[in-house]
């Protein structure tokens, strides 16, 4: 049986791991390769590395980092941040990335999804959506939730799928950083709508939250950062707990 995936996410700036709480107040938490290897040994099913560096120099550092990650890790990993053209994706593929994730660039230029899927295959393309709910309406946002896009979440997710996305990574900005649980209602609605896998992000604070995510949120994978980085939840404990809850886990 296909397992539900547990995915730690590492934010990278200038080659170092950071984690923003609600995308603000960044704190250092270590070397990405060492952290990634430790997660892999602990049973992480996949890893996501998001480059939040804005400078050109930082971008080059990130590609070099991706090579080191690919050489050292024996599980799949996704890289994201600053990918707006085919050539960006090509450099990351050549460095050894298994998948790339695009967010704002897909909103600004939806055809980028088609182009990436055509050139590299759908399995290489994760479309990340940061969305916020207000008055029962979910809207996709850009730049860490600061800029509304006018795109309704569910129709945008479906459009991304039909353009060739291989997976959707949905972060609820209402839940991100709160540690009060995932946006299960919206996630279940999206999972029912999609035929491609759905990764859920935003709100993980306890092991019960992951059980609820897979039971009620119907997601295929759960992503979290700070609770793993700061040792609040150990991945072996989480997997043991979920297995006991009857959830299919590696």
């Amino acid at each position, binding site marked *: *049986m*296909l*397992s539900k*995936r547990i995915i730690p996410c590492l934010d990278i700036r200038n080659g170092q791991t950071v984690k923003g709480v609600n995308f603000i107040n960044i704190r250092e938490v270590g070397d990405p390769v060492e952290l990634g290897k430790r997660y*892999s040994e602990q049973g992480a*099913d996949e890893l996501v590395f998001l480059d939040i560096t804005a400078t050109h120099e930082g971008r080059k550092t990130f590609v070099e980092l991706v090579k080191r990650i*690919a*050489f050292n890790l*024996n*599980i*799949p990993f996704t890289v994201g941040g600053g990918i707006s053209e085919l050539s960006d994706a090509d450099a990351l*593929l*050549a*460095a*050894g990335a*298994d998948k790339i994730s695009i967010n704002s660039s897909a909103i600004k230029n939806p055809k980028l999804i088609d182009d990436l899927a055509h050139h*590299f*295959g*759908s*399995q*290489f393309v994760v479309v990340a959506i940061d969305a916020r709910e207000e008055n029962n309406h979910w809207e996709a946002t850009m730049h860490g939730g600061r800029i509304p896009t006018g795109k309704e979440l569910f129709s945008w997710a479906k459009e991304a799928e039909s353009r060739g996305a*291989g*997976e959707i990574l949905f972060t609820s900005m209402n839940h991100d950083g709160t540690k009060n649980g995932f946006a299960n209602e919206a996630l*279940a609605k999206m*999972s*029912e709508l*999609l*035929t*491609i*896998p*759905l990764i859920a992000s935003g709100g993980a604070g306890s092991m019960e939250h992951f059980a609820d995510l897979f039971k009620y949120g*119907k997601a*295929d*994978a759960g992503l979290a950062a700070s609770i793993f980085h700061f040792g609040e939840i150990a991945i072996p404990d989480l997997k043991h707990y979920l297995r006991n809850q009857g959830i299919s886990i*590696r």
Partner: protein
Amino acid sequence: MKVVIIKYNAGNIQSVDYALKRLGVEGSITDNHEEIRSADRVIFPGVGEASTTMAYLRSNGLDTLIPTLKQPVLGICLGLQLMCRHSEEGDTECLGIFDETVRKFVLQPDLLPSMKIPHMGWNTITDLKSDLFDQSLDGQHCYFVHSFYASCGADTAAICNYPTPFSAALQKNNFYAVQFHPEKSGTVGAKILENFLQLKINL
């Protein structure tokens, strides 16, 4: 030991090379026929689309070379599919090393949202019938990413269910193939690659 990774227009060959390096083996990535023929082990990896990759193999004569190789050959993912008889992807005649055919997973509305396509993530391999595996690997998880699958048949060497059984691995004589990515399947995958490198050859 000389290990060759066949170079063609398929993605993520680099990961296989890295996996070999982690096992202490320096592989070479090449499409040179002589180099491929003289290697101790040949790996035929690949992520891509069947008809365009088959067309490329034909244009380089690799379609006639690969089926005549005598040393252990390991196909991975698309490599496995191209070693079958026919693929529904682009209605493609493949290398015909294995008699199995490759079909597309069909969306079954009653199985959504649990059965998404592509089949992506960690799933178990069972019913192991090959010296590529040892029995400790039965029921272990491997990492899969694919929308097409080889049906079960005479050459099936491991089974995976999604939700019906398909060939997670195939073997016929010196030809081995796995649908999952051993280079991305953690310690389980590393063990399978190691087994492939250590196969006893009876030429």
